[in-house]
């Protein structure tokens, strides 16, 4: 703590010897002012709290960092009986465990309603984060230092520039150095001679950051008196060139981003369509309850998570096989008890499975209530992967793209490399011939239906991370999944993959121009036209038997 704050800021440096000498005493004057300043936070309005924090920052105290972090995390409170300020160990829970704000020693537990929390609002938290960021500058972890420097770029003043310069001299991490250099160059834009400004612009040319771009563009703006914000024409020209260079690269990356959005939407579509491609293709059943099997998978995720509290990360992995089993067994059950009696009667199957979907929804509503259930996203799936200043890819989408490819690969292996897969393919190509060869088609039907349902359940696990887990989850995806299967060609996994991915990408390319509603309409119209030209989809089943179906 001591070491950290000694590098934290100039004001801390200056005050360092002062409190070092005094900290031996339990109740030094410093502690007194620290505690009384904290006390002012109790009643102050949000804007007054900002001023109190500013004073606290200038005065400095070894516990300042801990207290500020507690305030951000909603863990700072005062005891109603004596108005003394404490740090709480956790933001929730009853009783609460208090820690003394001065000594950082345990101060015992107390009922939650005997303390009052000190609230923050957005602008206050913003101030707090920049204050805390400065403590991060001397962290041994390069990522924390990088965040600290990035935070400081948002509010450049003489103080922060001095800190950045200091950091530049001592830091060894190239990314931190680069970011600090950007900050110093930005600072040079404000003051300095024309050559210094030109040099700064030259070094900022390669940046991809939107903030840098805005700062450079600001140089080109006209002032109210008709002149330019930047008086030197050479500097202006350099800035204009730099801005267009940055814009160009940012556009390239936003194209890459859009492509990724399309792939990720496509992978969701593929995931929900794989199961249907199998059931539709083999058994020939239009399964309107397919969406509800996904819903069962999503609820399985919720249940697994409830059973394993505190293990969010692992529970998702456990949920995958669990959802496969739950949805798969439900599928087999439905097939054995209802659907098999309706083979060859598409209209009746359609109605029966639609009825089944309503029954499944209502069952879930009775068990789990009509309210949506909250599935927690594990830490490793939140946030985004920062590739550079212009491109970040969100982890949950990235994992779902990978997950889809894995599920697709496994399904393909099962169909192409296993005995049951061979049987399924045989039955789907020519049922009568397969039967004549001694394949028990009834069993194959049940297995295929179970496999398709199980994959729907697995898709439900993925959907639980993207959208609401509620009784209506399935309904919102059923149309999409049928669309993909029809587009890709019935019963063909590759068709589902190519169809889903291309629909996703086309949708995302259209969306910025047409809006989400119109993009979907265009897509549907496009699909109708496509089906007119190729009624059997992208990859139709070939052969004489296929025509008889």
């Amino acid at each position, binding site marked *: 703590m001591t070491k950290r704050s000694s590098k934290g800021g100039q004001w801390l440096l200056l005050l360092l010897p002062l409190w070092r000498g005094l900290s031996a005493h339990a109740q030094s004057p410093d502690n007194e002012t620290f505690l009384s300043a904290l006390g002012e936070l109790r009643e102050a309005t949000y804007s007054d709290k900002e001023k109190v924090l500013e004073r606290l920052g200038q005065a400095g105290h070894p516990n300042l960092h801990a207290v500020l972090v507690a305030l951000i995390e909603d863990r700072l409170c005062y005891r109603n009986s004596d108005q003394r300020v404490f740090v709480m160990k956790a933001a929730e829970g009853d009783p609460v465990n208090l820690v003394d704000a001065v000594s950082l020693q345990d101060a015992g537990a107390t009922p939650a309603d005997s303390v009052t929390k000190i609230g923050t609002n*957005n602008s206050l938290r913003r101030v707090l984060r920049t204050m805390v960021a400065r403590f991060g500058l001397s962290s041994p972890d390069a990522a924390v230092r990088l965040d600290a420097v990035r935070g400081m770029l948002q509010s450049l003043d003489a103080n922060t520039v001095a800190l950045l310069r200091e950091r530049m001299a001592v830091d060894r991490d190239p990314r931190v150095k680069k970011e600090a250099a950007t900050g110093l160059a930005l600072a040079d834009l404000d003051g300095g001679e024309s050559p210094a400004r030109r040099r700064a612009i030259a070094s900022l040319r390669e940046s991809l950051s939107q903030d840098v771009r805005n700062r450079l563009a600001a140089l080109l703006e006209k002032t109210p008196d008709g002149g330019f914000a930047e008086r030197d024409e050479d500097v202006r020209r350099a800035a204009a060139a730099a801005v267009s260079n940055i814009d160009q690269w940012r556009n390239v990356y936003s194209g890459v981003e859009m492509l990724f959005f399309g792939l990720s939407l496509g992978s969701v579509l593929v995931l929900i369509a794989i199961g249907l491609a199998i059931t539709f293709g083999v058994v020939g059943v239009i399964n309107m309850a397919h969406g509800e099997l996904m819903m069962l998978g999503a609820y399985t995720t919720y249940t697994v998570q409830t059973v394993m509290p505190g293990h969010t990360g692992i529970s998702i992995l456990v949920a995958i096989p669990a959802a496969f089993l739950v949805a798969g067994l439900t599928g087999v059950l439905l097939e054995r008890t209802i659907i098999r009696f309706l083979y060859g009667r598409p209209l009746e199957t359609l109605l029966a499975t639609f009825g089944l979907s309503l029954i499944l929804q209502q069952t879930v509503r009775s068990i789990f209530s009509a309210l949506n259930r909250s599935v927690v996203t594990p830490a490793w799936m939140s946030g985004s992967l920062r590739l550079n200043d212009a491109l970040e890819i*969100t982890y949950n989408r990235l994992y779902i793209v990978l997950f889809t490819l894995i599920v697709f690969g496994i399904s393909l292996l099962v169909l192409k490399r296993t005995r049951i897969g061979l049987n399924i393919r045989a039955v789907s190509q020519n049922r009568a011939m397969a039967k004549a060869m001694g394949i028990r088609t009834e069993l194959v039907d049940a297995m295929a239906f179970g496999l398709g349902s199980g994959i729907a359940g697995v898709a439900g696990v993925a959907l639980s991370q993207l959208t609401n887990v509620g009784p209506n989850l399935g309904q919102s995806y059923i149309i999409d999944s049928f669309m993909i299967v029809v587009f890709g060609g019935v019963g063909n996994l590759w068709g589902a993959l190519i169809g889903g991915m291309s629909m996703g990408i086309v949708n995302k390319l259209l969306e910025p121009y047409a809006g989400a509603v119109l993009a979907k309409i265009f897509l549907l119209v496009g699909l109708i036209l496509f089906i007119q030209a190729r009624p059997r989809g992208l990859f139709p089943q070939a052969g004489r038997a296929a025509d008889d179906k």
Partner: protein
Amino acid sequence: MKRKVLNTAAWLVTTGSLFSGVLAAQSKIKVGVLHSLSGTMAISETTLKDTILMMIDAQNKKGGLLGKKLEPVVVDPASNWPLFAEKAAQLLEKDKVAVVFGCWTSVSRKSVLPVFEKDNGLLFYPVQYEGEESSKNVIYTGAAPNQQAIPAVDYLMKEVGVKRWVLEGTDYVYPRTTNKILEAYLLQKGVSSADISINYTPFGHSDWQTRVAAIKRFGSVGKKTAVVSTINGDANVPFYKELGNQKISAENIPVVAFSVGEEELSGLDTKPLVGHLAAWNYFQSISTPVNKTFIDQWHGFIKNSKRTTNDPMEAHYVGFNLWVKAVQKAGTPDVNKVLAALPGLETPNLTGGIAKVLPNHHITKPVYIGEVKANGQFNVVWKSGGAVPGDAWSDFLPGSKDIDADWVKLNCGNYNRSTKRCSGQNYK
């Protein structure tokens, strides 16, 4: 004659037929509850059905109303807008209810409106809505735009210093009208149209990547940006998740929502939402003795101490109490007399203020703006000076500026001050 009646009655009782209800009804007042108990809106509306049942139960324990017991008639319009009209007709024509508490979405209200006006029913509508309406037969206990949307935008403009605005909504009548009013208001306040971005997505939209990336880009030009969200229902969860994943925090680009309350938050992981705002006329976290009593009563009735309370529930609480007072004042549950008794009536709301029925059939409400906390509750960061009277016709839309609604003096919900004409119930 009398004997004949008695005979008939005896026959009815002994056969235990359907008609037994008719006789019982004479000592009962029927209260219709028209909320979806299945379909997409069940999530929100089931709670309101339970709220009314709780209020009726409490009133009956106090001895009923005018010496009669209240009897709830619950129907399920199943989130199906035409079915709302059918069920409303059933309540008014077959069950002959004295009052109906119901509807959530504006489209369902628009669907039942002709039925209520034809059959001269009485509807208490508890949800914040887009305004531009005042019916003789409806009491609007939810917020009009000037009691929610406009104060929220004012807060962002003055206290947060927002210069650039994204108006993001679900594609139906409430967001479209609200955004039209807000856009007119912002332009009037000197915001240039380049600094306003309006966008709509379908119901249940779940792939927010493109929109959130666009918001991020729109908000990155160096001016403080905020999102005003009229996104409704299920689409909110993936929206906030995506915001969190793309690292847009409330400190950079705050989102103020008009349809996200405690109930909606209870169904999602609130971590990525901390600091985002909501504007309502009631929050569960507002600590007043009457609110504490209400929450305890709710937990006791629903037998689950984790259930939240929310703004439309408070609107039903206020609406039910207003109706009870009006019936007591009129001395009869007759719709015309109750409607005449309602304007000017007052009842305490749950936040320590008074709700008063205005001549335009809206009520006075305080406005609160809260920031989401990690526990799914709200931390109030701003509140209006006093109760704000609901304005049926927005002052910021060119067409509706001159229109007044007054059911006391003018007896008209759509009176044009400049042409001095009452367009009656015709809203065009």
